[in-house]
């Protein structure tokens, strides 16, 4: 009688374990799948970040080149700009570099020195060209450049001095 009971229990236990291996495999598969997904998400995120940083670099150098262009154009002007009224056509220059269209807004910011000389300084703000003037937030590079003339009475620029050059983003 005791032997029959033991056999019965063994068979029931045997039936209860049916499919256990498959369940284990499915659990392992899910765990490994999650691990793989996390791994690939990390790699993808890294590569996407690289692309974003490349874009930021291109924008930075495009803004840099556009301001250099604006400086070059302004120094061709007398004074720079007639009676320091403007610093170029519509006080604006545009250039595309590295596939980024950049707008440079300029403004004359003359300074009277303590000795009475008028420093011909121009402020430049470069931002991605979206058709409106560069705002503080959108400005990528802001620079101030001094345009030196041959003498206090001359309007011809002989030297340019970068007084400040800040990269904002």
């Amino acid at each position, binding site marked *: 009688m005791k032997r029959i009971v033991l056999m019965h229990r063994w068979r029931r236990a045997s039936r209860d374990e049916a499919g256990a291996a498959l369940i284990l495999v499915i659990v392992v598969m899910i765990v490994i*799948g999650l691990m*793989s997904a996390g791994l*690939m998400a990390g790699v993808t995120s890294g590569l996407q970040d690289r692309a974003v940083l490349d874009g930021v670099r291109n924008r930075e150098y495009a803004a840099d080149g*556009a301001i250099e262009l604006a400086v070059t154009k302004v120094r061709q002007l007398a004074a720079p700009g007639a009676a320091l009224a403007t610093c170029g056509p519509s006080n604006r220059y545009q250039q595309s570099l590295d596939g980024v269209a950049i707008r440079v807004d300029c403004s004359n910011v003359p300074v009277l020195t303590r000795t009475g000389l008028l420093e011909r300084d121009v402020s430049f703000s470069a931002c991605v060209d979206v058709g409106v003037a560069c705002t503080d937030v959108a400005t990528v590079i802001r620079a101030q450049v001094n345009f030196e003339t041959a003498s206090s009475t001359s309007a011809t620029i002989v030297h340019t001095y970068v007084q400040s050059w800040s990269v904002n983003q």
Partner: protein
Amino acid sequence: MRKYSEAGTSLVEIVIAIVILGAVVAALMAALVTATTSSKAHRDFATADTILRSYAEATKSSVRAQCTPGATYSVAYPGALPTGFAISAISNKSCPGLSDVQVVHLTVTVPNGTTKAIDIGVRQP
């Protein structure tokens, strides 16, 4: 009620389990290989970015230091290039004119042959 024999059930389960596990492990290994390859590519691109920035600054500095109207300039990469990387050489290039900027195309080749490039604007000082 008819009773079915359970003989061989465990064997079938184990075989199916091994097949599924094998497929999963193979997928995991493929993911690991992809991750490793991508990680190296990412590192190379980050290095290429640093090289490009250094080369761009060296180019601007060279133009400032060497250029007078009608002169030429050459650019030396600051320091040693990391192994496997190459840059486009700039030697005896005409200086930009007084009234415009010169666009200089800089490229760096990473060890797997991919190139990264940037255009910069330089002007006569």
